[in-house]
């Protein structure tokens, strides 16, 4: 069964540094998403991406964050000037065309800011 893959599985970074989280969505999917989950809390929506542009974003997704689809297979989340409170699991998801298609999630990147 095709799946969403994310790398790295765990990223440790010093506060203030930039990180790039990488995702390979399911190959024929056209809709891409980033979510995050702070330890012990709910899964929160960050951003959705379609046709090479952001479709929706939450209040969390401020100027510190950016997304990119640099080629035909990768989807990245960049976090600039990381803060301690950015420590969380970051999940990528993708969805096929069709309003009744579900989102499929990767297993996440655990980001630890020191």
């Amino acid at each position, binding site marked *: 069964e095709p799946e*969403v893959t994310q790398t790295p599985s765990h990223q440790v970074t010093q506060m203030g540094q930039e990180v790039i989280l990488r995702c390979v969505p399911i190959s024929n999917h056209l809709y891409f998403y980033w*979510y995050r989950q702070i330890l012990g809390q709910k899964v929160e929506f960050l951003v959705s991406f379609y046709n090479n542009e952001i479709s*929706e974003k939450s209040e969390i997704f401020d100027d510190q964050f950016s997304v990119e689809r640099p080629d035909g297979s990768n989807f990245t989340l960049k976090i600039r000037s990381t803060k301690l409170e950015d420590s969380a*699991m970051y999940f990528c*998801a993708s969805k096929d065309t069709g*309003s*009744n298609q579900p989102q499929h*999630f990767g297993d*996440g990147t655990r980001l630890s800011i020191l």
Partner: protein
Amino acid sequence: LAKTTQPISMDSYEGQEVNITCSHNNIATNDYITWYQQFPSQGPRFIIQGYKTKVTNEVASLFIPADRKSSTLSLPRVSLSDTAVYYCLVRGTSGSARQLTFGSGTQLTVLP
């Protein structure tokens, strides 16, 4: 976005059928009901979704009454490995990029 309410936790024993009910009183006409499963340190895994009546796949059944204000996820003969958090979500379909809004979910613990 329709708000969902589900029990915080449930316990069951191996081999039993587990039913988790979710209420979504403000569901809109075009909304789908979707259930995900999440294990610790893993991403949510899609289980099943439906619009009305009953949907069944290889892992679960989803029962939706005619008024669609609630739904019940049924897991037949659970095993220890079914211990996880189960999320009920109501998903809009207008604008295919629509985000998912997760609640706190139901922590299902399967006991030996």
